[in-house]
């Protein structure tokens, strides 16, 4: 700074003018960079979108096994054996996602969630078949951490060597079902799905007041995020779209004990019914068609099965698949 009253010397003037010029240029550049004459459009802030591949195993289509047993783990083993062994579906070095039903913070005895022993056994079998990583996930209805702990699925899966992935805002990506009506730009639990080679659905057979029954197709509901409950306005439509959304490697419906009433939450042992059946297959419509029979329904009574069949997800005529029947007693 020059002293007061002194004339500005040239050097100082040039220096100050340069600084001022730089300042003006910076303000101008910032304004140019940030200028927006139109304002934001309606779609701003949309999440990046993802696509779901088919997880079906080639050459294993249209397979179905029905195991009669009052014990889950032997039923699982026998059923997989009847389908040609888990090795037919899971190969060495693969990453396998097991989508369980962990919707409610309720103990395993109430059968509102996938049975933890069954989950653990499936994890072990996947590992034995050579899977590099087994991921167990769900986006439950009740508090996620509590659901995985109280249902016993979390501890059992971890003990068996699986990685349990809980939902988190960052784990969701936007998804649109090609040709879908309901699932459009909807948050999908993408984090656990990212990079997996195989997807296995493992769901209990349950009563459901709105959709009549809940088994392996409705189980994919737990891959949706957002305020997904709005889809209950068209429950049959959403279940059939869920069937279209996921083409699994294998689905397993556990009806050894079914939640026959007061579903899908249950809450009392009196809501359970020993139905002694486990259904395994690659056609989810066929598997669920057998499953609804455990609840005393015929496939033609269940609207979402008809819609899914019409959409080409599978067939309700499960006898056409020549199911392998195994009786364990």
């Amino acid at each position, binding site marked *: 700074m020059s002293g007061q009253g002194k004339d500005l010397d040239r050097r100082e003037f040039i220096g100050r003018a340069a600084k001022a010029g730089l300042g003006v240029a910076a303000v101008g550049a910032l304004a140019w960079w940030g200028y927006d004459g139109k304002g934001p459009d309606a779609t701003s802030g949309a999440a990046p979108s993802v696509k779901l591949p088919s997880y079906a195993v080639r050459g294993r289509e249209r397979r179905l096994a029905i195991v009669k047993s009052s014990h889950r783990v032997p039923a699982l083993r026998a059923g997989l054996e009847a389908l040609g062994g888990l090795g037919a579906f899971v190969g060495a070095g693969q990453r396998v996602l097991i989508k369980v039903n962990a919707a409610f913070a309720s103990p395993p005895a109430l059968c509102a969630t996938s049975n933890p022993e069954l989950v653990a056994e499936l994890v072990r079998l996947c590992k034995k078949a050579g899977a590099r990583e087994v991921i167990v996930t769900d986006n439950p209805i009740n508090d996620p951490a*509590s659901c995985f702990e109280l249902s016993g699925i979390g501890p059992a899966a971890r003990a068996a060597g699986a990685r349990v992935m809980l939902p988190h805002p960052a784990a969701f990506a936007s998804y649109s079902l090609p040709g879908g009506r309901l699932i459009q730009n909807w948050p999908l639990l993408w984090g656990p799905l990212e990079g997996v080679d195989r997807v296995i659905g493992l769901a209990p057979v349950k009563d459901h007041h709105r959709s009549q029954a809940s088994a392996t197709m409705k189980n994919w509901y737990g891959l949706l995020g957002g*305020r997904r409950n709005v889809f209950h306005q068209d429950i*049959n439509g959403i279940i059939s779209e869920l069937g279209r959304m996921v083409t699994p490697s294998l689905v397993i419906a556990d009806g050894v004990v079914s939640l026959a009433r*007061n579903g899908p939450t249950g*809450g009392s042992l009196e809501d359970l019914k020993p139905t002694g059946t486990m259904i395994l297959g690659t056609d989810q419509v066929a598997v669920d068609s057998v499953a609804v029979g455990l609840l005393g329904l015929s496939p033609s009574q269940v609207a979402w099965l008809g819609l899914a069949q019409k959409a080409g997800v599978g067939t309700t005529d499960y006898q056409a698949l020549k199911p392998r029947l195994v009786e364990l007693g």
Partner: protein
Amino acid sequence: MKITTARRISQAFFLALFLWFCVVATVGERLWQLRGWPVNWFLELDPLTGLTTLIAGGSLYSGLLWGAATLALTLLLGRFFCGWVCPFGAMHHFIGWLGNHSKDPKERARRNAPHPAQQIKYFLLAFFLGAAASDLAARLLLGQGAAFAAGAIAIALVLAATRKGQGRDFYFIAVGVLLALWAVWSMAAPRGGASLLAGLLDPIPLASRSVNLALLPLADMPLRIAWPEPRFYQGAAMIGAIFLAFLLLNLWRPRFFCRYVCPTGALFGLLARFSLYKVGKREARCGGCMDCEALCEGACRPAGRLRPQECVLCLNCLSECPESAITYRPKPSAAGEVAPDLSRRRVLAGLGVGLAAPPLLGLGGLLGPNWDPRLIRPPGSLPEGEFLRRCLRCGQCMRVCPTGVLQPAGPSFGLEALWTPVLNNTIGTSGCQPRCVACSHICPSAAIRPISLAEKLGQGEYAAQGPIRLGTAFVDRGRCLPWAMDRPCIVCQENCPVSPKAIFTRVAYQTVISGLSAGEAGGGELAVSGRALRPGALATGDYYLVAGEVRARIRANTNAALSLEPGPGWHTPTPGSPVAVQVRLQRPYVDPARCIGCGICQHECPVSGKRAIRVSAENATREPRHSLLLKGAGPH
């Protein structure tokens, strides 16, 4: 090792332990989860929490006994808690040091000089004790009859009149006595009660609340250790802002909160006057360098006549005195001591205002006719009056709640309920989970008494009394999709966790397209005319064609034809006869005899703003006055 180094290690250790306890208060069995960590230990060590709950609630609950140990040690050592243990004190100490250590020693000594405002904390203590005691006082006085009360007040008035008036102090005592009088009178009406207002400024509840509800949720967002999903607390900004303000005030005056505000410090101060060991000068005279005062945390004038009640035992004076003139011994300072600069009358006024506060707050009628049905308390909560006498507002229940449904009550719930736990079923990850009793076991003062799962669910020995109800769900038929908008839904019914479900449905067929007439039937299809249909729109499985009294479910539709699934009694309508399309609606109803008020239905309701089914506190187990149903008069 210098004694001040030992003190710093102790402060750092206890601050880290306090923060660790805040982090691990997560339900779970892993090392960084709750397991058996004594997460309430600091709250229990704070004797003001014990004392105020003892006075207001009538018992010293469980771990609050630790406070007696703190008080006993204070009688031996002085305010060791403030300088060596208190995690809030350690934060103030550190920030005060940051803001002041580079300043000129003279300026620092000026900031550390005793100030009359240090009295404020004693008045606050008196106020909080008064607020806690108002119910007890009323019961003691009125228990002996109104005459006794009037007599006691008359004696107080006479005593006051005979003491020589000291200017404005006269007004203080007049106000105090008038307020005490008012308090006692108000108490005769059943709208008073005590209130544990102390928790608002009691340092450990304040720090717990601030860390649990503001600091930790912010810090954990990217880390996801305490919660797997981001955690939200309504009104956390105010809680965090007060915390931040108290921390920043240290830049102006070191240990601002401890010197002027802390009611627990005041309680310690009253005892520290009589403590066995004290800081003090060996000789009355010293070099007068004032180094000690530049470093004094408590503003207790170590260079001159010491104020032992203000000394927080930082021991900077003892450690830094170039002449080693200061010592810690069972003898008063050689330079003399100054008792608290407290006017008995002002303390009395503080007590009087405190006594009057709960009845004044009670005028809002929260405990009476104006009870707030939004005040849905956690399971196991005591009736509202007793709840307010015990709740510390420490935020532990809200911290441990796995779903985050427990939220600090905002000012709209009344000042007496500020920051106490209330269920907000739209926030968090779920309503109150039926199989969880975490809040009742963490509550350090038993405002939420410890309950077992069997008691909460009404099982085993509790089967006869039934489950603990938090309130009742009510369907808002103006917002509910099947009730108001002809859309099927019943998400609430699906998610009701009670067996048999407390939400049941009744089927209604509602005509949505009328003015149609039947056409030709053939090939499983029926042609309709009169109105063009939107192709596929009726294929959801929820639509029916009604002809006369019978219906057939619509499987698919084009713009002029329907594919039908005939039901029992169905016969193809004659061409030209009127037909209509109906939607099958399952409309939800709540059975109040089964509803436990868990709020899961409200949380899941797809009407995402103001939900179409909402819980309010009617019929909550804890308040028999608010019960809804006549026993034995229901249909089931």
